[in-house]
């Protein structure tokens, strides 16, 4: 597991040597965003001699504070991902967006070899066995992909369709479905929502009835990201005959090349254009009973837990595009001349961008705090719901306000700001809508 630097006494000392009066954690959170791309952490470890290198420069600016959540390995991972994204992904995004599809198997293989699906997965099945902070670091960097679709698709594989399998699945099930998902040899999807049950997960109608050693699935699943190209789905279905809607469902690994699986045509959406979203139909689809993940009847509870990871990576992946919107808009406003001065000379623009930057920074801090709490073993469903709501709302605000600054140039279909405007809108809907987040927060408030 990662040793988090904040807990080491040496760091605090180093930190106090530079500035005093505030806690390590609070201060690093405040500066983390602006320098995220630029600063290089000093080492906190004494075992490999890097600390010696750091201490020789006491008089220099090398003594910048540690990141609240990441150590130099997280940052090295982000650097390598950034390079791959710049070299192999971003040059193709425009074509994929135009074509309404991207080659998932090819991209997953490239990135799977590098290890992006492996972060917190068990080593026994090709994972790295690290903690969730590495998943968050990966998700955050995937946000530098120049569209919303591809990172969403990748995160479905790493943190939406596989967490329950990794935690509760049998060895055989993990060998069959988890290992190739981690390596990127197969594409996975998560099938929970239905035409009649999105936010109200317990109301799903898909059934999995026993027939000898098999389950027979019937029903339909909606809004399935990766659905056209996926090889297997993690399906939530009613498998137990009882009226307790929270204990009659199971998560089931379903190979999508099975007989009786039908996929709709690709759904056309407002944004996320190169993502293949479909409706799945199960018509007497037969899978072995052993494909149930963990204990039968516990699927709903597993899925609720799985949703927490899904929501946290959703927050993480939104940070980079939102920062880019704000930064690009600032640069545009600086160059854009109007009525004898620049747009950025207008106080209205200055204050507007400052407000957005503050909110983004606050959201980032909430995410890091939530992840730290999760790493400490706390129940983070409340903080997660808050962060998810905040990022969905903020995505709408940032993209709308920034687009307005760009005017006609931002309204063009191919502008980055327009792509963010339409892609990030989904963050108030997917992975639990704003209203679901609000109801979670409200439930927690009532409990107190």
């Amino acid at each position, binding site marked *: 597991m990662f040793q988090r630097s904040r807990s080491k006494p040496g760091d605090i000392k180093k930190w106090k040597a530079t500035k005093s009066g505030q806690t390590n954690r609070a201060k690093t959170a405040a500066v983390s965003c602006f*320098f995220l*791309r*630029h*600063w*290089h952490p*000093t*080492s906190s*470890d004494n075992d*490999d*001699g*890097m600390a*010696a*290198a*750091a201490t*020789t*420069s006491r008089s*220099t*600016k*090398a003594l910048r504070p540690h990141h609240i959540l990441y150590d*130099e*390995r997280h940052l*090295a*991972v982000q*650097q*390598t991902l950034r*390079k*791959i994204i*710049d070299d192999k992904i971003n040059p193709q995004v425009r074509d994929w967006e135009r074509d309404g599809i991207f080659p998932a198997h090819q991209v997953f293989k490239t990135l799977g*070899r*590098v*290890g*992006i699906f*492996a*972060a917190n997965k068990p080593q026994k099945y090709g994972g*790295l066995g*690290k903690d969730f902070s*590495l998943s968050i670091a*990966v998700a955050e960097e995937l946000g530098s992909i120049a569209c919303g679709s591809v990172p969403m698709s990748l995160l479905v594989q790493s943190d939406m369709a596989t967490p329950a399998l990794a935690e509760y699945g049998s060895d055989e099930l993990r060998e069959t479905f988890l290992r190739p998902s981690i390596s990127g040899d197969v594409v996975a999807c998560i099938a929970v929502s239905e035409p009649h049950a999105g936010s109200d997960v317990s109301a799903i109608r898909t059934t999995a009835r026993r027939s000898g050693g098999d389950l027979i699935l019937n029903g339909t699943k909606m809004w399935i990201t990766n659905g056209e190209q996926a090889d297997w789905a993690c399906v939530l279905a009613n498998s137990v005959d009882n009226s307790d809607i929270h204990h009659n469902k199971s998560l089931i690994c379903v190979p999508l090349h099975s007989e009786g699986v039908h996929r709709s045509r690709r759904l056309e959406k407002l944004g996320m254009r190169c993502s293949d979203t479909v409706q799945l139909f199960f018509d007497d689809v037969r899978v072995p009973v052993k494909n149930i993940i963990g204990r039968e009847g516990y699927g709903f509870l597993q899925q609720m837990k799985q949703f927490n990871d899904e929501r946290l990576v959703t927050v993480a992946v939104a940070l980079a595009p939102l920062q880019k919107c704000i930064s690009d808009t600032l640069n545009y406003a600086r160059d854009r001349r109007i009525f004898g001065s620049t747009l950025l000379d207008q106080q209205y623009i200055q204050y507007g961008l400052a407000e957005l930057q503050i909110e983004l920074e606050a959201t980032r801090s909430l995410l890091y705090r939530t992840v730290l709490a999760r790493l400490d073993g706390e129940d983070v469903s409340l903080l997660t719901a808050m962060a998810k709501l905040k990022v969905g709302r903020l995505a709408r605000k940032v993209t709308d306000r920034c687009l307005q600054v760009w005017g006609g140039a931002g309204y063009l279909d191919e502008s980055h700001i327009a792509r963010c405007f339409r892609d990030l809108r989904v963050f108030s809907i997917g992975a639990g809508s704003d209203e679901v987040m609000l109801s979670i927060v409200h439930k927690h408030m009532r409990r107190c």
Partner: protein
Amino acid sequence: MRILVGVKRVVDYAVKVRVKPDKSGVVTEGVQHSMNPFDEIALEEAVKLKEKKLATEVVAFSLGGPKSAEILRTALAKGADKAVHVQVSEAEAAKVEPLHVAQALQKLLEKDKFDLVFVGKQAIDDDASQTAPLLAGLLDWPQALYASKVEEGGAGFLKVTREIDGGLDTVKVKLPAVLSADLRLNEPRYATLPNIMKAKKKPLQNIPIKDLGVEIKSQTSILEVSEPPQREAGGFVEDVPALVNKLKEKGFVKN
């Protein structure tokens, strides 16, 4: 065969460099740095030689300030077995010249036996292209610079191909030798997540430069660093005769 690979920390190639207001150099503070791309190619080739069982060990070397340790970690993540950091202060780092690096390498090679020193053909910050030939000169070792292909050349030899004007030059070089890598030698791999994690556990040795007896004394002095001149906006002409007239007017074409 043991290979020592030189890797330098430079301003990232994607950064648009800015000249400091006092014209003493370029702004490096708060700017993304990474491994010199030509050194990455040298490292990749060394790791490939190890994978082909032609080399037994690859050691990464860097001379620089404290932050050079990050570049060495990257080298370890990309396949180097060990790393050596010859440390200088931040102030000295700004004054390092190829000769100092060559001298430090020479001293290291006196203590530790290597069969091959491999560096990039040049660093993208100063573009000096001198470290490899200076080192070969100091050691009196054969050199094969600007390598575009490296192959086994029989016992104790390497066959190195170099791209030259009008063709390819093939050199049989006796080991120990100094090599430098050209752009088309290979395409460096990306550091993978598992290897980044493992890199943390690989040995990284720190050697203060004074322990090697090398003094960072400038051989050159920088008089001034300035931005390239701004290109003036061009104009449009109606047709070819107008263009010719314009060129004659400006004295670019003789009558």
